[in-house]
């Protein structure tokens, strides 16, 4: 096959966000050969996402240096297509496919936004809250646009700050959780002073609690949003709506590799090892907890994978500190039941295959729904509608299918016996 290569390394790390970079840095001390694979063209993951409109923190720059070490091979813009066998992954980038042989694997796949359907959520102009940030960082202009931010969780404030800094007019930030929870959350932050300071910096007078989107309206594009705030409703004209209901761990690759899940996240032991020997996981794929937790988990995984057990153990207390923070966030931003009932019978749940709520509501579970309605059979492989169905109907996540992401047929051909040997 003309564009096929075979690579090998001691330690393969998937993801170049905080967790992946910290894991690479910790493992690189042992002079083992490392490969870092990330599907983004630039390093940094979600929080340190690089792009034309970004000036990076010193810490992010510092962590990124590991990628230029001679023992580290960095594969940006590279997708994982499948696991070929134990210790071998099939990858592809824009030109080439690779077979990557590894001894140990560290999964640092991060999280994705939880999008929940409401009437109009598929209109152009409506995105996730984190997705709006990503858009802005990658160069989209929002200057002068009226932006509304809604959903749940601390990400809303970060998203509003990014939008404001890019010149958008943020007309409101609508958080579904109630005032009591928010006050408790704020008071609790005293235990993590750095986070409290961050919250103060990001806080805005346009922050509203116990409020959520009811409907996005517009003809071909978003024109206005109907909001419920407490017991009142209002229609607010705007150009963009950024709406996300928190984050869900990315577990697809881990599931494909046979790793067990717990609470919808990759299950790991104290050394960040998954249920599969030699496969570690760190960062938000093991549970949503912010970049500080991702960094320390990544470091533990990198050390454990290179046999530095004591050094890993020395980090356990620090990790526990940030694990408590993760629990604190989770406890105060739980979704109120009405958030799961925003969609109407004709609201689309699966955008790839145009499947409406009424069609899915008749099915017993994911497998029947998929077979009968084609839900989740599109190019996104059920990544979005699978999480939605879990929230709305309590169905378990779809079993990942190969290729894990859309892949060139040529890449899949490269695996036939003839060529592999």
């Amino acid at each position: 096959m003309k564009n096929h290569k075979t690579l090998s390394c001691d330690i393969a790390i998937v993801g170049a966000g905080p967790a992946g970079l910290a894991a690479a840095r910790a493992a690189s001390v042992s002079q083992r050969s490392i490969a870092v694979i990330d599907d983004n063209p630039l390093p940094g993951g979600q929080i340190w996402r690089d792009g034309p409109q970004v000036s990076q923190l010193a810490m992010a720059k510092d962590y990124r240096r590991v990628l230029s070490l001679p023992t580290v091979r960095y594969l940006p813009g590279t997708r994982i297509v499948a696991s070929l066998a134990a210790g071998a992954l099939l990858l592809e980038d824009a030109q080439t496919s690779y077979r990557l042989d590894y001894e140990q694997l560290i999964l640092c796949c991060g999280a994705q936004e939880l999008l929940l359907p409401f009437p109009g959520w598929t209109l152009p102009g409506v995105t996730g809250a984190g997705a709006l940030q990503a858009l802005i960082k990658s160069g989209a202009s929002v200057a002068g646009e009226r932006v509304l931010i809604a959903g749940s969780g601390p990400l809303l404030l970060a998203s509003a700050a990014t939008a404001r800094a890019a010149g958008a007019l943020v007309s409101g930030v609508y958080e579904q959780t109630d005032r009591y929870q928010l006050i408790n959350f704020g008071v609790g932050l005293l235990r993590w002073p750095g986070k409290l300071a961050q919250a103060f910096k990001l806080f805005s007078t346009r922050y509203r609690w116990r409020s959520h989107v009811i409907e996005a309206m517009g003809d071909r594009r978003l024109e206005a949003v109907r909001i419920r705030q407490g017991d009142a409703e209002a229609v607010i004209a705007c150009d963009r709506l950024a709406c996300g209901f928190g984050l869900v761990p990315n577990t697809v690759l881990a599931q494909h590799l046979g790793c067990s899940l717990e609470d919808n996240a990759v299950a790991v032991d104290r050394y960040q090892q998954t249920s599969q020997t030699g496969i570690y996981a760190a960062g938000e794929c093991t549970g949503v907890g912010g970049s500080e937790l991702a960094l320390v988990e990544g470091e533990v995984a990198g050390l454990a994978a290179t046999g530095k057990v004591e050094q890993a153990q020395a980090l356990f207390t620090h990790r526990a500190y940030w694990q408590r923070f993760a629990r604190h966030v989770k406890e105060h931003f739980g979704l109120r039941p009405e958030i799961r009932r925003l969609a109407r019978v004709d609201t689309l749940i699966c955008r790839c295959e145009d499947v409406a709520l009424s069609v899915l509501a008749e099915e017993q579970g994911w497998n029947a729904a998929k077979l009968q309605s084609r839900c989740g059979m599109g190019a996104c492989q059920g990544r979005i509608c699978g999480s939605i169905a879990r929230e709305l109907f309590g169905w378990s996540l779809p079993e990942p299918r190969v290729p894990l992401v859309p892949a060139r047929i040529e890449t899949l051909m490269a695996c036939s016996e003839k060529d592999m040997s």
Partner: protein
Amino acid sequence: MSLQARTAAADVVIVGAGIMGAMCAYELASRGLSILVIDNGTGGATGAGMGHLVVMDDNPAELALSRYSIALWNTLRKRLPEACAYRNCGTLWLAANDEECGLAEAKQARLVEYGAQSEWISASALRQLEPMLRPDLAGALKVFDDGILYAPATARWLLHQQDGRITVQEGDVTRVEGNRLCLSEGGWLTAPAILLANGLGAFRLLPDVPLRPKKGHLLITDRYPACINHQLVELGYAASAHADDGTSVAFNVQPRPTGQLLIGSSRQFDTLDKRVEFDVLGRMLMRAQDYLPGLGELNAIRGWTGFRVATPDGLPLLGQHPDQPGLWLALGHEGLGVTTASGSARLIAAQLLGEAPPFDPAPFRTERFVGVASHTPGAAA
């Protein structure tokens, strides 16, 4: 007429709600019988297969059954809702060289005998019809009545017809004895007739029946509208499909109504491992690229496997169990069970109700491989 005894669950209890069980329920209920269909929800070949409705002519029995079945589908197709995604796209049997042109000619002659319309497409006409194919093919035989169908939706639709005479129940059947069956929860059910249409699940209930799984891989692409227009199959397909052992691949590609390409096919014996095997998938795709040179550039979005259930002679078992009165079998449809569901169901109904069979039932007799007699040397067909 009603066969229903006072304690019976229904006139006929069918195990399996795949295309075969659904079609048998539809056919029997159309004659006024009450039908109970039991399925354990594991699913089978109906959800995994390609759904190509195709006349196959490797032997006269297969040709009679598949030709009759296609004719039945053609009367049914006008009633199928859009979810069943029926399309009368026809099949192009591709000839790569002179030798295969000869195969096409012989095939056409056999099809004519059974009333299946076909037409020879010259090399230049083929290039116009299917520009994505490699240009040096010798031509193709177009079979007009063939089509495609989304089998899972069709099975469900069939089970909702016939004015409520069909009931579907979730349940796992753990044993069958004549006209009784045992459910994992809820004890025994009795009916005048019990029909096993549970595909691969029959291995567990009738371990003596010589059925073999044949694993197949399929792959579907992203949407590329107006790519190909017919189901495309290489003329060497039959040879590959009926190879007795080893792993084989053949070119078989279907245009989905969504604009996606569904790519087959592979055959492997005696494995029940559901995982996609990359060496087999790779070989299958190389074969496909041999016919569609631009294929490598397209994006694949999903691959999967399924199991065909094969009898030793490749023909299904259709009829009553020779040693267990009241137990009926509709098993072993290999890679053709969506096509032949209609004809098989009609034959089962005819036998069950003592009507004249629609075609010669002898090649499908269960006695070939089932029952005490079939195990004595020299007894099997």
